[in-house]
């Protein structure tokens, strides 16, 4: 390492840090592309959700295994980057949903190896464990928070495959960079310090809560409100923006206060999402900003508390990664059936409300009957789980020229969107509960401190 010039070292550090950020971002990067994947592979909501779940599940399991095994950080990083690079190319070229999920599993395995070993690698590049851990923590937070935004922009500008196309070269460059680097020597394994386990538990619960902000909020604005991916990405970008904005504040707070305050902000932001009083991008962005502020305060402190370099750099990094992704997987497993059930009820309420709007609409019966029949046909044609386009029958009936038809169309769409938005309430509520629960292990963190 000492032979590297500072500039060259900076470039190598940036290359490795970027690949780590991408591996963290991959937990949520395809969320905004889910509707595209749903259409491309003609699958079910549960089927398409495995594109996200499979990655996080494999990262959690493989990172836990890496924590138990004794692995060489340098070799693990290289193998991880090779797997990640190849699997990203495979995801980009996937011909079926099963193929995509299989490549996502391989990508998750590569990511787990990379994330677990990158702590020692970044420590070597930055010259000390503390500086390496600080950079690792920063890119971990940014990667997770920026994932949906990056995915949304790439999906709308190009295609869902672009999300994976850009990842392969990032991993390839990092792979080349690691050839000139050396990982810090791993410490002999010791018992982890007091409080590290509590930090793992709190970190897992915070990331379980993040499912609400990173996944549910994105699904709401894209699939129910019909925003384009870039517009959705703009709304969601309030989250990483707030995460960055509160970082100076986090440095002024004691760790327990930062974690407790962050968890409360995250819970309040999720509660605000659960209690939306209308369809409003501004309210979602505001609620996500509070979630982002909570993440910016709690996650860096928890990650620092979870990372215990004295007990082994790779082991420590692997445990932290496993805790984060286990939280995501746990929440995905609980939230998916809850959301499916509540959306079924919401769909029924939406139909009743929509029928009321049509019956009471102040439009002539010669227009009302064809509109009602066309709406029935649209319902029949819509694939299960997809919100049909109900604007078209009104537009065909002259919504552009008739204010009454236009008003009926807008009332119907608002009624449907409102009912379906309400259907997200239990899932957001569960995510808020996870955020509040994270305070419990954080209290143990305080005692340990």
């Amino acid at each position, binding site marked *: 390492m000492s032979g590297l010039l500072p500039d060259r070292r900076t470039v190598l550090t940036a290359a490795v840090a970027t690949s780590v950020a991408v591996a963290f971002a991959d937990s949520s990067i395809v969320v905004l592309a889910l509707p595209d994947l749903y259409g491309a592979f003609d699958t079910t909501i549960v089927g398409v959700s495995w594109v996200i779940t499979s990655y996080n599940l494999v990262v959690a399991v493989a990172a836990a295994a890496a924590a138990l095994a004794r692995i060489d950080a340098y070799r693990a990083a290289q193998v991880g980057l090779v797997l990640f690079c190849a699997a990203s190319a495979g995801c980009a070229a996937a011909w079926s949903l099963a193929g995509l999920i299989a490549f996502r599993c391989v990508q998750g395995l590569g990511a787990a190896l990379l994330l677990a070993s990158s702590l020692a690698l970044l420590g070597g590049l930055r010259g000390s464990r503390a500086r390496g851990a600080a950079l690792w923590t920063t890119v971990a937070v940014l990667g997770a928070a920026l994932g949906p935004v990056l995915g949304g922009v790439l999906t709308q500008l190009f295609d869902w495959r672009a999300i994976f196309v850009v990842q392969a070269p990032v991993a390839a460059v990092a792979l080349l960079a690691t050839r000139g680097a050396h990982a810090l020597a791993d410490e002999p394994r010791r018992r982890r310090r007091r409080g590290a386990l509590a930090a793992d538990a709190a970190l897992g619960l915070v990331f379980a809560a993040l499912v609400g902000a990173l996944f549910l909020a994105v699904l709401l604005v894209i699939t129910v409100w019909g925003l384009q991916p870039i517009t959705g990405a703009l709304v969601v970008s309030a989250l990483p923006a707030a995460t960055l904005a*509160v970082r100076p*504040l986090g440095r*002024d*707070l004691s760790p327990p*206060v930062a974690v407790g*305050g962050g968890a*409360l*902000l995250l819970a*309040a*932001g999720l*509660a*605000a999402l659960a*209690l*939306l*009083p*209308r369809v409003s991008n501004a*309210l979602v962005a*505001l*609620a996500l900003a*509070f979630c982002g*502020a909570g993440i910016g*305060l709690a996650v860096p402190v928890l990650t620092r508390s979870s990372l215990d370099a004295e007990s082994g750099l790779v082991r420590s990094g692997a445990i932290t990664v496993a805790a984060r992704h286990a939280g995501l997987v746990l929440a995905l497993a609980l939230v998916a059936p809850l959301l499916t059930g509540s959306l079924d009820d*919401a*769909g*029924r*309420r*939406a*139909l*009743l*409300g929509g*029928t*009321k709007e049509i*019956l*009471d*609409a*102040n*439009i*002539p*019966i*010669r227009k*009302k009957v064809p509109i009602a029949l066309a709406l*029935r046909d649209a*319902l*029949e044609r819509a694939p299960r789980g997809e919100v049909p386009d109900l604007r078209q029958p009104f537009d065909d009936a002259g919504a552009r020229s008739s204010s009454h038809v236009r008003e009926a169309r807008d009332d119907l769409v608002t*009624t449907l969107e*409102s*009912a*379906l*938005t*309400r*259907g997200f309430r239990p899932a957001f509520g569960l995510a808020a509960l996870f955020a509040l629960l994270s305070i419990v292990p954080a209290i143990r963190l305080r005692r340990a401190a």
Partner: protein
Amino acid sequence: MRRLAVLLAAAVALVVVELSVGAIGFGKPKLANPCTDKPAFSGGGLDGEVQRFVLTGLNGAACRLHTTREELVLSFVPAAGTKRVRWDRATIDAALRAGFHRAIEDTEQRGPAGYVIGHLLDVIVGAPLDFLLDVTR
């Protein structure tokens, strides 16, 4: 610490504001009671009279079947995926006829013009309704 307190207060304020501007009832369709409420349709002219007449008839039928007019309508749309028709044909016929008679009574009570329109609709709609119910039986 003070900045954190301000942030937390702002987050709680957002939730309180949401609750105060209707978060509790948001997304819940306000379905009318078919036994007591009049149709909310506000259109005028002959078209308006016909629609109000039909909607009152639907209300009457739904009231008789102890359901809402929306559920009654959707129960005939298989794609809606709501409860399928859960009444036998004779019950539906009786409910529709009862609804129709309630619609005539309601229309006739709206002054002399309503009396005339109610009688007219009885003649115009009544016979085809009987015919349709008999034919589809």
